[in-house]
């Protein structure tokens, strides 16, 4: 099964939940889909590197000798990455999604494709945990192809936990779609509730089952709990506010290893998710 861990914004403890759940899940794949700022490796530190796979986009390359400047390519480009002038065709690389529509419609066969590396996927192992990490090159604007490539490397016979980017934008949707279950991490504050409602809206739209983990659950108010009851969204677990947890995280440690009495809490989230995703 594929379990996505997401949150309406950063800093809610999403990576804490994903990494610690993965560490008690036995044979598992942990996929860091936050390609703009991957940080799972800070906690998991893989020992063996299995491989690095480049992620490329196919950018159009225009042969000005063949081009008649008819303008069809620019009209066909949904992303408006091309501009055709009397004497030249301009490509705005950072707008191009590499979809190939322009070369498909060009009547002169003037467009060929040239690969451009926009990121890579790194695969490593630490014991029974396989870490798949998407890394977008600095300055590249489009993380989604890197996320797709990282997800394509998942072995479907084993469980996969996806650490989504923060927020509810395109890369988050790219991560969460196709998952069997989505675990949303939030805090019991008005801000946490607001971001949660956005995330819930997104997951609902994707038609994916979900549950919520409340982090720093014993500070704040009842708003999130009341909202969950009203929406009939299961509360999977409450992680208490414990300075030792923050301390372990700030050092890049794993709570389940350094504070072993929390192992049961993370295992119980996994069990509930399995139960909820198989039932009904």
């Amino acid at each position, binding site marked *: 099964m594929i379990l996505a861990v997401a949150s309406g914004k950063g800093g809610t403890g999403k990576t804490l939940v994903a990494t610690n759940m993965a560490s008690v899940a036995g044979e598992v794949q942990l996929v860091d889909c936050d390609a703009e700022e991957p940080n799972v490796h800070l906690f998991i530190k893989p020992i063996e590197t299995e491989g690095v796979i480049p992620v490329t986009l196919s950018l159009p390359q225009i042969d000005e000798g063949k081009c008649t400047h008819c303008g069809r390519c620019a009209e066909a480009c949904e992303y*408006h*990455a*091309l*501009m*055709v002038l009397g004497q030249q065709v*301009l490509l*705005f690389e950072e707008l191009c999604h590499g979809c190939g529509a322009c070369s498909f419609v060009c009547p002169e066969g003037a467009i060929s494709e040239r690969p451009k590396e926009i990121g890579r996927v790194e695969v490593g192992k630490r014991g029974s945990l396989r870490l798949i990490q998407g890394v977008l090159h600095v300055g590249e604007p489009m993380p989604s192809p890197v996320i797709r490539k990282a997800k394509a490397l998942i072995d479907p016979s084993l469980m996969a936990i996806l650490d989504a980017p923060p927020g509810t934008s*395109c890369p988050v949707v790219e991560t969460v779609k196709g998952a069997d279950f989505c675990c949303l991490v939030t805090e019991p504050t008005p801000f946490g509730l607001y971001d949660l409602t956005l995330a819930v809206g997104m997951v609902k739209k994707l038609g994916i089952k979900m549950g919520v983990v409340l982090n720093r659950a014993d500070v704040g108010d009842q708003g999130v709990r009341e909202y969950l009851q009203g929406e009939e969204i299961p509360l999977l677990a409450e992680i208490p506010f414990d300075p030792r947890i923050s301390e372990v995280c700030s050092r890049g440690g794993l709570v389940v290893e350094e504070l072993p009495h929390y192992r049961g809490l993370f295992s119980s989230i996994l069990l509930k998710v399995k139960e909820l995703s198989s039932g009904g």
Partner: protein
Amino acid sequence: MKVVVTASGADLDAPVDPRFGRCSFFVIVDTDTMAFEAVENQAAMAAGGAGVQAAQLVANKGGQAVITGNIGPNAMAGLQAAGVKVYVGAEGTVRKSVELFKEGRLQEATSATASPHSGMGRGRW
């Protein structure tokens, strides 16, 4: 000379719309006769690339200058490649801004005055 003014309405008395790629209308004015043609901006609500699309429209319409409020880097690059001059900081009506232009009182931009996506209502895509 043909100038393209970004506007929030479809005539000479419409206010200038300061957003180049995401304006509501392009009013294309012949500065000699003040004859004009208005084109609705199909890209006003597009997800991305509105500036490039608008620059393409200006080039297709044979515009020699653009009068607008702000312009982003992609649109600027496209217009420069097309040999179109860009005048920014325009205010008031289309008619007024064309007059100011004719009197040489508008400021010519040689680089972008807005960051990418700034004309959009939401944050990142």
